């Protein structure tokens, strides 16, 4: 399945993934510093999937996503400052501070809905694909959702509709339940499904399915590109399951930056990966994994990696400054936009 990617694409994806990662590290820091409160979700560990997916889409394609949306929105090109400001509930936020972390949404980038209702993005996704089909222009829809979304019946309904009407929808399931905790152990909700293999569900409806290593960006890109092509060709929906291990920081109910700020020297061997999170650093961190691929046998790439990271960090520093400086929404706007 994995096709070798061009170096250009790899570098592009690496930059995106770095931005996603540094963004989430900012979010975590701003939360620790009490710049915002309330429940939130980080995309760390899943960057390969989201960045690859966005690289497969065209500007006219549409997207629905979930509570775990930061990475998607950043990968699709949202301004990190506006996105951070939204998470802080500021007037300069992507949505004027009305949506917050769970609802970052920019229709100008093709996002139709960012819903915190589990099952929402997949079910509205069929609708998005329906509109694409009506447009008859080869555009498609991509619905991101977590593994638990398949516990909701409406997800099953949406898959049925998409299959019946051959809707151009890539159903992209980001399965992060491996090594997750569960409420009984004080953890975040995790998959509670009798299906041993979630692919059996869309398969029962005749939807072609693929499973891919969600940490391997090359593999993700190849698999998603194949699905996107099928949709664009009018052959109906596809279901792709990207498998990641649950990032340790997202296992408890409230996220923690337990693996620390990403140290790219772990990819060069200059920093140690020993300790509790050894396996994650070595195998399951998609950013480190891609960095290692880029560096393998090409020591000259080292400077490019670290320069890129420096630029990304500088961009995030600016973004943070923008977000923190952005004012709270004006009281006078409270009742704006109830109706269009």
């Amino acid at each position, binding site marked *: 399945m994995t096709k070798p990617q061009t170096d250009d694409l790899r570098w592009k994806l690496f930059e995106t993934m770095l931005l996603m990662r540094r963004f989430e590290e900012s979010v975590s820091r701003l939360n620790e510093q009490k710049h915002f409160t309330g429940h939130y979700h980080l995309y760390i560990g899943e960057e390969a999937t989201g960045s690859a997916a966005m690289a497969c889409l065209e500007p006219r394609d549409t997207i629905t996503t979930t509570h775990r949306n930061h990475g998607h929105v950043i990968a699709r090109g949202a301004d990190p400052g506006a996105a951070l400001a939204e998470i802080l509930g500021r007037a300069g936020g992507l949505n004027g501070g009305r949506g917050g972390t769970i609802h970052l*949404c920019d229709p100008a980038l093709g996002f139709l809905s960012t819903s915190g*209702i589990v099952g929402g993005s997949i079910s509205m996704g069929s609708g998005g694909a329906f509109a694409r089909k009506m447009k008859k222009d080869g555009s498609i*829809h991509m619905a991101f959702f977590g593994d638990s979304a398949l516990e909701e019946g409406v997800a099953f309904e949406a898959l049925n509709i998409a299959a019946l009407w051959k809707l151009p929808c890539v159903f992209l399931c980001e399965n992060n339940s491996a090594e997750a905790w569960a409420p009984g152990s004080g953890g975040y909700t995790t998959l509670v499904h009798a299906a041993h293999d979630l692919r059996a569900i869309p398969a029962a409806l005749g939807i072609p399915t693929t499973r891919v290593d969600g940490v391997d960006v090359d593999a993700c890109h190849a698999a998603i590109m194949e699905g996107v092509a099928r949709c664009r060709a009018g052959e109906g929906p596809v279901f792709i399951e990207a498998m990641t291990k649950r990032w340790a920081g997202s296992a408890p109910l409230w996220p923690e930056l337990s693996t620390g700020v990403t140290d790219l020297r772990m990819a060069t061997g200059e920093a140690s990966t020993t300790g509790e999170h050894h396996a994650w650093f070595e195998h399951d961190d998609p950013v480190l994994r891609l960095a290692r691929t880029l560096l393998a046998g090409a020591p000259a790439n080292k400077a490019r990696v670290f320069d890129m990271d420096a630029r990304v960090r500088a961009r995030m520093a600016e973004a943070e400054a923008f977000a923190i400086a952005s004012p709270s929404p004006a009281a006078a706007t409270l009742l704006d936009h109830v109706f269009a």
Partner: protein
Amino acid sequence: MSEHMSIAQALIAAIADAMAEDPMVCLLGSPLGLGPQRMLMNGLREAHPDRVLDPPTCEAGNAALGVGAAMGGARPFVDLSTGSFSFLAFSQIVNEAAVAHYMSNGKVRVPVTYHTLEGVRGGGAPQHSQNVHALFWNASGLEMLAPATPADMYGLARSAIASDNPTFIMGHAKLLGLEGPVPERKAVPIGKADIKRRGRDVTIVAIHLMVHPALAAAEALAKEGIDVEVVDPRTLAPLDEATILSSVAKTGRLVVVDEAPLQGSIASGIAGMVAERGFHSLKAPIQRVARPDAPVAFAAGLEALLVPTAETIAAAVKRTLSTS
């Protein structure tokens, strides 16, 4: 040129006209129920075979399809069939469609129209007789329409499909066959009440199907010299409070009629609004006429006891006149 139509015809005409004007309008499901009017769907199906679709029996999925399609640039008209089935789509309507515009700071638009046939239909028993309008009324961001005449159905359905907001048209099984003039094929503005009969002595605010027994009560009372004004809000959300309040300012007496169970009915809510904003106009207790707080029994005899009639409405009008 005035036409004469049933409410069913008016609804189909509105959908057909909207489909002819805009290729992104589509119809999911069939809004005409089980009665003879359902045959009117045939023409629409033939004219637009790829835009009139029969979805599976999955109200939540269909409603979500409508939300997503609307966000993606379509103007879907989603029929949810019998009122109580719309409860299966409650989250899609209230948690998704209704809040998306506000939550996105006005960036996302959700021009979806939902339609259901609610109410006491005759032999529907509890599960097929639910009035649903009162249960959605508290959801901010949702436009709710309750047309009671063919002209209002045509005009409000056009406005609903044209609206960039999620809109819920409450149809009523008993209204489908009701005929009347449609003077012009034009939109009726959302949020504007209609005074269906002018009068000086007592205001009746009647919603939806109840407009008709209210008008009958008014006619009967006219013979006794009681001059009743009948206000039909037509739009339940946003409610045209000004028209209601100015009628009460004139008459000083208010009867509110709703087919829903009394507790949490729109009758109760309108009464509460007037008790605050029109209190000084009131010369007598507001009278709410609604169903008792009970499911709807299958037996025809019991069912008939439940629903407001011209007689129970007239009696309520008289109560506002006898107490002072």
